[in-house]
C-alpha cells in the first residue's frame, strides 16, 4: 500500500540504528581486542569509558565474553543485534524476507562466535552479514522512503557513536554531511534548527563532542 504506520516508521529507524551500533561496536571491539591480546591487557576500561558504557566487567576475559555475547547486558553487541532482529522481524511486510535473512544470519553467526577463543573471527562474519544487509536494503527495497528512514537511523547512530568516540573532525564532518543529505529525503519530522547547528558546529576548529551527541539524539521529532 506504500504507506507506513507510526509503529513501522519507528521500527525502520531503530533497525538502522541498531544495525549500525552492532557494526561499529564490533569493529571497534575488534581493533581494541587486538591490542588487549598482548599490549594493553586491561584496556577494556578505557574502551567502556570511550563508549560511555558502564564498566561492569571483572577482567579482560569477562569483558571479552560478556561484551560480545551477554544477552542480559543491554550494551553488549549481542543485545544490540537482538534489538535489530526484534525490529527486523516485524518489518517483513515493509522490507521483504530477503533482507531479514541477513539479520537472522548475523544472529546465528553471533551465537556461533561464542564458542570460540578467537572472537574476532566470529565477529567478522557478523560484520559481513550486516554489510550484506545494508547492500540488500539498497538493492531490494523499492520504497525510497523506507530505505531513507533506515539509513537516517544508521547515520544518526554513527554520528552519535563517532561523537562519543571523539573521532577526528573530518570523520564527524563527513557523517553530518551524509546525515543532512539523507534526513531531508525522508518524511521524518526533524528539527531543522538542530540540523543547522550541527552543520555549523563541525566547521569549528574545536568540536563540542557532547553537543554533537546531544543534537544527534534529539534531531528526530517523531
Amino acid at each position, binding site marked *: 500500500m506504500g*504507506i507506513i*504506520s*507510526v509503529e513501522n516508521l519507528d521500527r525502520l529507524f531503530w533497525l538502522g540504528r541498531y544495525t549500525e551500533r552492532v557494526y561499529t561496536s564490533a569493529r571497534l571491539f575488534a581493533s581494541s581486542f587486538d591490542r588487549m591480546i598482548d599490549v594493553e591487557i586491561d584496556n577494556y576500561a578505557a574502551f567502556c569509558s570511550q563508549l560511555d558504557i558502564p564498566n561492569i566487567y571483572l577482567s579482560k576475559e569477562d569483558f571479552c565474553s560478556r561484551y560480545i555475547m551477554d544477552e542480559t547486558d543491554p550494551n553488549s553487541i549481542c543485545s544490540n543485534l537482538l534489538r535489530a532482529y526484534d525490529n527486523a522481524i516485524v518489518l517483513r*511486510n515493509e522490507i521483504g524476507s530477503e533482507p531479514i*535473512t541477513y539479520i537472522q544470519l548475523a544472529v546465528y553467526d553471533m551465537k556461533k562466535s561464542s564458542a570460540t577463543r578467537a572472537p574476532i573471527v566470529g565477529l567478522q562474519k557478523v560484520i559481513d552479514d550486516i554489510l550484506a544487509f545494508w547492500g540488500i536494503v539498497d538493492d531490494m527495497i523499492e520504497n525510497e522512503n523506507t530505505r531513507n528512514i533506515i539509513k537516517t537511523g544508521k547515520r544518526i547512530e554513527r554520528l552519535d557513536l563517532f561523537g562519543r568516540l571523539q573521532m577526528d573532525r573530518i570523520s564527524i564532518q563527513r557523517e553530518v554531511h551524509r546525515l543532512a543529505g539523507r534526513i531531508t529525503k525522508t518524511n521524518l519530522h526533524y528539527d531543522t534548527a538542530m540540523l543547522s547547528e550541527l552543520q555549523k558546529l563541525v566547521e569549528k576548529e574545536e568540536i563540542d563532542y557532547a553537543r554533537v551527541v546531544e543534537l544527534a539524539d534529539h534531531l528526530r521529532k517523531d
Partner: protein
Amino acid sequence: MQELKLTKQSEIVNELLARYGVKFGIYKNNVFKEQLFPFDTIPRVIEKENFAHLEQGLKQRVMALNCFIRDVYGEKKIIKDRVVPEEFVYISSGFLAPCDGVTPPKGVYTHIAGIDLVQGKDGEWYILEDNLRVPSGASYPMIARELCRRSSPDTFEDNHIEDNRYYAKLLRWVMDYVNVGGHTVILTPGRYNAAYFEHSYLAEKTGAHLVSGNELMVEDDYLYFVDYTGKKERVGAVYRRISDEYLDPMTFKEESVIGIPHIYDVYRKGNVALLNAPGNGVADDKGIYYFVPKMIRYYLGEEPILQNAPTYLPFYEEDMKYILEHFDDLVLKDVAEAGGYGVVFANKMTRQEKEDFISLLKKEPRRFIAQEVIDFMDIDILEDGEKTPRKADLRAFVLMADEPLVWKSGLTRFSRNPDSFIVNSSQGGGFKDTWVLSQ
C-alpha cells in the same frame, strides 16, 4: 517412487528454513520462545486421481459449511427442520449472538478453510476436523517448496508435481473478491503470536499490508489505516488473524487490547469485509462436526464424498450407550479445546481416570465427542538419516470466493514421537511438503 535426490539435501533445506526464519512461537512457563518448525524432506505424495477425489469432497464440504453458517445466522431452516438440534447450535461457544442477521459481503463466510484429514490404511481419507476461524499453516509448505527447489532442482525436474506457488494469488483473489472498497490488510495480534511468521509472510506474498489493531481506526462507520503523517486510508477487506472474541472490544471481549473498537459495526453495515467471517466457530465446533454429512445432504442434496471419522455424541442416548460399551476403543475430545489439547485415548487411562471421565461425560454430555481410533497410514520421515514411520495428518486449504477452490498442496504434519497420534507443532510435531502429482 524412486529415492529422491531431495532427501540427501535435508541439512541444507533446514539451514535455509532457519535462515528464512521459518518459526512458530510457543509459550513455556509464560515465557515466549521462537522455535524452528522441523521439516522433513520426504514429501507426502498424492496421486493425481486421488487428489481429484479429495478436491471434489473438500469443495462439497466447504460449500455445505458455508450454507450452514449463512442459515444459522439467517433463516435457521436446518434447525427448524430438526436436522441439527438447536441445543448444539446455541450452546456452542462458536455461536455469536451479535452475528445473528448479519450477512457478510457477497455472502461468503468461509473464505479460508483448513480441513484436517487422515488417510486410513485402506487408502480412504477421513475428515478429522474443519477449521473455519483462523486456520494457519499454508505458509510453511509454500516456503518449504521454494527452498527445496533451490536445494535440489533435479528433484523437481524429475517429478511431475503441481506447482504450489499460486496460493498467494488465490488468497489475494479471495480478498479482492470480497473487498468493499479500499485497501486490503492482514490483521495480526503481533510478533508474539504463535503464527506471526505466517502473518508476515502472507502479507509479503499477497501484497496486503500487515497491521496491528492500533494502526486501524473506525470513523463514521468506515475503517481506516492511519499512517505516520496522520493520513487516513480506507480499508475494504481485513484478513484478520485474531479470534472473534478479541476482534472488537465494544462487541465481544471488552478487555481485548488487540482488537479495533467498533470494527464490528463497520462490518455489520457492509463497509468492510472480514475474512473469515465472525461467528464461523459455530460450524467448526467438534460437536457440529458430527452433523456435516447431514448438512451436505440437506443443503446440496448430495451424498458426502468424504467421510467423517466414525463419531458418537454422548448427548444422544444411543450413542452414550455405545460409548460406554466400547469405551476402551475410543478417543474422546473436549469440543472446547484445540491444538491437540483435550484429546484423550481411553485405553491409556487408569481405572480411576476412566471412572472419573465417565462420570464427567454423564454430567456434561454436550462437552465431548467420541471417535473410533482410525488406524491411519504411517508416513516415513528421516531420523538420523534412516527412514522411520510416523503418524501424519493433512491440512488441506479450501479458499472460497464465487466458488470454492482447493489448493493443490497442503500442510502435512507428523508426530515425532513414535507412540503418538498428536501431530500439532505446539506439541513437538514437524511438517512435510505435500506433493500433488500432475500426471
